[in-house]
């Protein structure tokens, strides 16, 4: 057979779609072309830096010689070392060695607890999954998935500190007992923003016991939404009932959750949940988003309006005015022509769906916007039974804010403070509060936290906190369902105390602090407290309690619904805010708006020491391990710094260092990527930040994610300081990470600040982006259609669906010859009857569908995969070299139309997760010289790690670039210690580090030199199949027959439809991933999905026949909107 050479067709002359993933690609520089042509990113396969040189070829040969000589002596090592089997003396209930046990629990969070099912192996929690029985279950996000690693974090606090020095636990016990014995203490409690009924109950008791007690609540990024609705009230959102959704700068899908979000995504599928119906655009919801920079919610939008955050008030006011609301009087009318054109049809659409629409204001937007959104929702009659909105009254009432706390400390109303919030007020409080100075005035400050953060060192006492997987507690989920938090394990370190245990010690007569376990194996006092709470608000008795522990929740006593009403101060607040922003005016290039954005990796900074989150690329900017300021290309051009920002870095090919005479690096990418640093001045402060371009961002805004720059050491690239090795506030993961933006943030400008100026400096900072790694040229990979006919020849919805399979190159490709056709096939073997079906399993043939219509690109799957499959982290330097190990690559594409006359700078955003597609005709398998990657009978493309010799031919031949190579022993050598990876046997070993306890015992931990990639969670598949086949015996027993007399059918041996889930599918909050047995056909969701018209294969024309299919993204634009013609056309043709 001659070689099949594919000629890429020319781009049609009338093609209007341009798609790109980076500035370099958009500009189509020759360097970018070179980058694309390389198999691995520049330098990924080479040893370049000075540390790497230590293992040069010569020293390798020396070592080889020595090891051959030693082999003779080493023979004795072939004898097996004696190993032991150590059974339990008394087996704990439910534990079967080697089998996972599952418990229902929850992760307490500010926006409502995330209900979880925790996988434990012999009592050791290893993996989190959503509790899908829970009425508020909505998958898990990356934070929840990564939180299991915090339990085993090497930088977790383990010792009690007094004024920053480790002391004995007994000293603390004395201090707590003294405090408990003093009912007249001027004591304050600073809680987080999560809601815990037990904590609220104990707070009431504390208020009785300590007559001067005061209670406060603080988290850095919770905003003012609660204040608008009333004390302790919160919105409860039911997305399944919302046909039209308007987000006013609210990232409800990812970082600013308002309610369980899965129903929203289910309504992004025109076939409905589970793909059971015919595609019907009427069933889809429609999302309008008003925001400054791309958020993941904005990426899902059908219509998106770019405005700076201050102008959101004007847009909200204009909408209120169109609806004829009196609140609009306080707001200046919109003057921007585009905004007016955009708002009118939007309001018509909302009005037409009154009672079934939803207007959400970002919870960090000023109170005025919240009031306006509330007024609009009231006018649209969206509140009430069977409607999308309700207001819940939670238990978190009567809590002061941080400003009130500061005032009370300064006036000595509070001289003893318990800081229980997960935020880090000494670091992240608004700069003008100067909270650290007030905090230092306290007589006694007690900080309970899992890290020794800045607040811990600033306190009199620091108590190491127990992880939520180690403590008894309870919480309210996002829609107010009572949810229990139960421990999986006693605290790993004996001094770790939970919040409730600390409060209970203060409430007890003796003041004795009991943590983890009571005397003689009695449960923690927190257990009794939670049980008492449940008995009072739920049901009494053993049965109800056991049911609560089994299910994880109790629906009987939800947070009560209260009527929604506009606060009397609303009008005044709106008017005052209007005057404020009127003064500042619209942002200009000389007075930019700075947005202190919530970070997708570290949130407010609390997860800075979590390596999974640090290494997961930011969903929008694709930066790892750092933060950077984002700026729109147009603004950069106006400021005259665009050329500098995209300017390739000269790097000498000989020396590998920057040099004016050096070669130009490939599009300023890979390990050589250094970004210019800008100085940003606002609110009288100046900070420095590396700058990146960001598409679709409002002009004259700078987005800076918060939470980084918490601590530095001597290895810092920019020698930032101060270096305080004695009081390290961050561990190896969080040290030298990014830049701190909190100094710019004041209490008047907690979300955004106006009037900022930026200056480009000469300094540069290396950043590790995964953006252009593993690029796949510009074929029609992510496909998109629109539900309306946009009069450009593509036809109506049905026509567009029919054309999904023919987009891009697939329009021109000849039919493929498939080599694995079954026996006797006409087209296959000349000698009919000789060909043996390759995929011979008649019980299971696995397959996956990824629905781009509901995938938002949030990276939850990526982190879940990391947790399930023991994927190591590699560190910033390795990521920069393109050696990241994530099995799922979250691509995200931008696309715009050349003829877009509404807003050409607002490209469409399409994310696309790509993992191994398990091609039936896999190109990787044919090139492996040792048969380490082969096909299984049930359709998996398998990797035998112990057979792999690391030629990397397979990765070279993979058209999808989904194979990952272990360039180093990332599991054995901590990649975060500088140069450690290159030291070989002399490096610091990570064996015995606590994070190894997290590893999944059913998945091999890979070593250096082997290739790995997505396995479709083969361990889960095997487990399900083995369990099913074991049922044969049960059937015989039940029937009372001998096994030889039983009929064994397919039903006995095939697993029930949709009964196994991969880790990514399980975690996905958008239910974008369906996985199943293809032989279940239409009975399984996957079977239905793959028969849809919008199902297509990636690079179908090369004939690999992938088992993972993609469903084209469907946009549901409003034909009356001015930009409707440009929606749903992101399909990527040739670049």
């Amino acid at each position: 057979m001659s070689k099949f050479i594919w000629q890429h067709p020319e781009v049609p002359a009338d093609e209007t779609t341009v798609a790109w993933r980076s500035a370099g690609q958009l500009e189509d520089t020759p360097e970018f072309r070179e980058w694309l042509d390389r198999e691995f990113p520049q330098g990924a396969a080479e040893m370049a830096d000075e540390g790497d040189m230590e293992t040069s070829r010569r020293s390798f040969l020396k070592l080889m010689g020595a090891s051959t000589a030693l082999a003779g002596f080493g023979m004795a090592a072939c004898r097996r070392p004696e190993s032991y089997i150590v059974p339990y003396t008394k087996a704990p209930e439910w534990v079967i060695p080697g089998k996972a046990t599952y418990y229902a629990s929850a992760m307490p969070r500010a926006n409502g607890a995330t209900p979880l099912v925790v996988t434990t192996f012999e009592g050791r929690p290893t993996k989190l999954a959503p509790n899908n029985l829970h009425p508020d279950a909505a998958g898990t996000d990356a934070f929840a998935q990564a939180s299991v690693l915090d339990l085993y974090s090497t930088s977790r606090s383990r010792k009690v500190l007094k004024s920053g020095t480790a002391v004995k636990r007994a000293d603390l016990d004395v201090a707590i007992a003294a405090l408990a014995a003093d009912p007249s203490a001027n004591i304050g409690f600073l809680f987080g923003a999560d809601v815990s009924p037990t904590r609220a109950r104990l707070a009431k008791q504390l208020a009785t016991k300590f007559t001067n007690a005061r209670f406060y609540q603080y988290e850095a990024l919770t905003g003012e939404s609660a204040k608008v609705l009333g004390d302790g009230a919160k919105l409860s959102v039911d997305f399944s009932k919302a046909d039209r959704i308007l987000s006013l700068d609210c990232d409800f899908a990812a970082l600013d959750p308002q309610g369980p979000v899965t129903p929203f995504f289910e309504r992004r599928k025109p076939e409905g949940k589970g793909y059971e119906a015919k595609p019907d655009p009427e069933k889809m919801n429609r999302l309008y988003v008003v925001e400054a920079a791309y958020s993941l919610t904005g990426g899902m939008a059908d219509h998106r309006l770019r405005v700076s955050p201050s102008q959101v008030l004007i847009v909200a006011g204009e909408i209120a005015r169109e609806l004829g609301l009196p609140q609009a009087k306080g707001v200046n009318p919109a003057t921007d022509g585009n905004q007016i054109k955009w708002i009118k049809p939007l309001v018509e659409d909302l009005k037409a769906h009154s009672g079934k629409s939803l207007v959400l204001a970002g919870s960090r937007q000023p109170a005025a916007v919240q009031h306006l959104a509330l007024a609009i929702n009231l006018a649209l009659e969206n509140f009430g039974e069977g409607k999308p909105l309700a207001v819940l009254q939670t238990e978190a009432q009567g809590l002061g804010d941080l400003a009130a706390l500061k005032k009370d400390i300064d006036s000595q109303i509070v001289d003893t403070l318990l800081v229980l919030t997960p935020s880090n007020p000494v670091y992240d409080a608004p700069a003008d509060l100067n909270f650290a100075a007030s905090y230092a005035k306290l007589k006694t400050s007690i900080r309970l936290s899992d890290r020794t953060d800045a607040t811990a060192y600033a306190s009199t006492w620091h108590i190491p906190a127990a992880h939520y997987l180690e403590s008894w507690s309870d919480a309210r989920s996002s829609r107010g369902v009572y949810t229990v938090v139960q421990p999986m394990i006693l605290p790993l370190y004996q001094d770790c105390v939970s919040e409730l245990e600390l409060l209970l010690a203060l409430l007890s007569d003796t003041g004795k602090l009991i943590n983890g376990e009571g005397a003689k194996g009695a449960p923690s006092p927190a257990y009794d407290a939670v049980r008492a709470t449940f008995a009072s608000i739920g049901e009494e008795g053993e049965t109800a309690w056991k049911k609560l522990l089994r299910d994880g929740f109790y629906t009987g006593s939800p947070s009560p619904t209260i009527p929604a009403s506009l606060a009397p101060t609303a009008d005044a607040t709106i008017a005052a805010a209007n005057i404020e922003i009127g003064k500042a005016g619209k942002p200009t290039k000389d007075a930019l708006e700075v947005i202190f954005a919530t970070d997708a990796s570290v949130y407010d900074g609390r997860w800075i020491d979590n390596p999974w989150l640090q290494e997961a690329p930011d969903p929008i900017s694709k930066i790892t391990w750092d933060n950077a300021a984002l700026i729109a290309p147009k603004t950069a051009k106006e400021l005259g710094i665009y050329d500098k920002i995209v300017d390739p870095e000269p790097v000498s090919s000989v020396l590998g260092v920057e040099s004016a005479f050096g070669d130009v690096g490939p599009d300023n990418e890979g390990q050589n990527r250094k970004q210019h640093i800008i100085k940003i001045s606002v609110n009288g402060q100046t900070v420095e930040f590396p700058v990146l371009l960001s598409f679709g961002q409002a002009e004259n805004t700078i987005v800076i994610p918060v939470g980084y720059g918490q601590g530095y050491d001597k290895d810092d690239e920019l020698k930032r300081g101060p270096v305080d090795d004695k009081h390290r506030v961050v561990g190896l993961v969080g040290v030298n990470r990014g830049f701190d933006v909190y100094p710019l943030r004041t209490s008047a400008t907690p979300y955004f600040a106006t009037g900022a100026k930026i200056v480009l400096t000469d300094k540069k900072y290396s950043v590790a982006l995964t953006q252009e790694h593993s690029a796949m040229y510009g074929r029609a990979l992510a496909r998109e259609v629109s539900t309306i006919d946009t009069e450009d020849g593509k036809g109506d919805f049905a026509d567009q669906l029919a054309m999904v399979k023919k987009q891009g190159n697939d329009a021109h490709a000849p039919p493929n010859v498939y080599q694995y056709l079954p026996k006797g096939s006409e087209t296959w073997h000349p000698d009919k009857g000789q060909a043996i079906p390759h995929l011979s399993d008649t019980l299971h043939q696995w397959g996956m569908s990824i629905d781009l219509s509901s995938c938002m690109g949030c990276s939850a799957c990526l982190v879940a995969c990391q947790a399930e499959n023991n994927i190591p982290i590699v560190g910033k330097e390795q990521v920069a070299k393109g050696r990241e190990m994530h099995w799922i690559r979250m691509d995200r594409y931008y696309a715009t139309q050349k003829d877009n006359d509404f807003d050409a700078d607002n490209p469409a955003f399409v994310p696309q997760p790509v993992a191994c597609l398990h091609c039936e005709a896999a190109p990787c398998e044919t090139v492996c010289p040792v048969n380490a990657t082969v096909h299984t009978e049930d359709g998996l493309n398998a990797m035998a790690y112990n057979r792999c010799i690391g030629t990397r031919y397979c990765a070279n031949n993979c058209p999808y670039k989904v194979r990952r190579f272990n360039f180093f022993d990332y599991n054995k050598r901590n990649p975060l210690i500088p140069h450690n990876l290159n030291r070989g046997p002399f490096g610091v070993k990570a064996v015995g580090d606590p994070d190894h306890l997290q590893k999944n015992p059913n998945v091999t931990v890979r070593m250096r030199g082997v290739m790995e990639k997505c396995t479709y969670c083969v361990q889960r598949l095997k487990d399900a199949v083995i369990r099913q086949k074991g049922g044969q015996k049960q059937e015989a027993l039940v029937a009372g027959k001998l096994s030889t007399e039983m009929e064994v059918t397919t039903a006995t041996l095939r697993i029930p439809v949709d009964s196994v889930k991969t880790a990514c599918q399980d975690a996905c909050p958008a239910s974008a991933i369906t996985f199943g047995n293809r032989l279940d056909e239409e009975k399984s969701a996957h079977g239905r999905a793959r028969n849809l018209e919008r199902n297509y294969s990636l690079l179908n024309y090369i004939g690999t026949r992938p088992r993972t299919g993609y469903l084209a993204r469907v946009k549901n634009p409003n034909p009356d909107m001015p930009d409707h013609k440009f929606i749903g056309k992101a399909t990527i043709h040739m670049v």
Partner: protein
Amino acid sequence: MANIFPRWSNLLPIKIAVCALSVVAGLVFAFSYYATPKTLTVGYQPSQPIPFSHKIHVDQVGLDCRYCHSFVDVAGHSNVPTGSTCWNCHQHVQKESPKLAPLHKSMDPAYPGYDGKPIEWVRVHKAPDFVYFNHSAHVNRGISCQNCHGNVNTMEVVTQDQNMSMGWCLTCHRNPELNLRPLEEVYNFKYNAVDYLSKNPQSGVKTPEELGLKLKEQFKVKPKTTCATCHH
């Protein structure tokens, strides 16, 4: 001209060849003795903290395998009994036997040296870390303990019976009929296919081989031989 090579050097090439051959033969012998799976593992018989006799417990007492290895048919790992499983009987039986001192130390609070720590049994059978072996997948589909572990019922001290190399696994995965039994007979160490057939006559089945083939067909046993079956 004097001889450059003395007379004795005439035999040198032969001597060198003989030496080299014996070295090579020695290496081959050493390798096959020390390094092949058979010699590495078969017959491995470590002494255990308690000289537990399977012969007594299975043959004389008549315990089922699953009394102690209680999760063999539900989990991948066949568990070694907990201390309390032994203690169930041995708090009453053979109380004074000095051989049971480690058990008393682990379980008996009245015992002088009691520490409550588990007994450390020495592992006899071990699949490498990169192999995923599941006991329940085999015993629930008609493969007996005896097929891999040998006649444990006659062992005073447990010995490794089979070499458990990958080739050995594959011989059975390719031809499972040689080892398949009716599910009721999996834990029966006295099983004999001929006796079984005489007691339970099957239509069209005369020989043990035919029984194996019949069970394979009836149970739909299709063992997989691709890598991911055991390596993932």
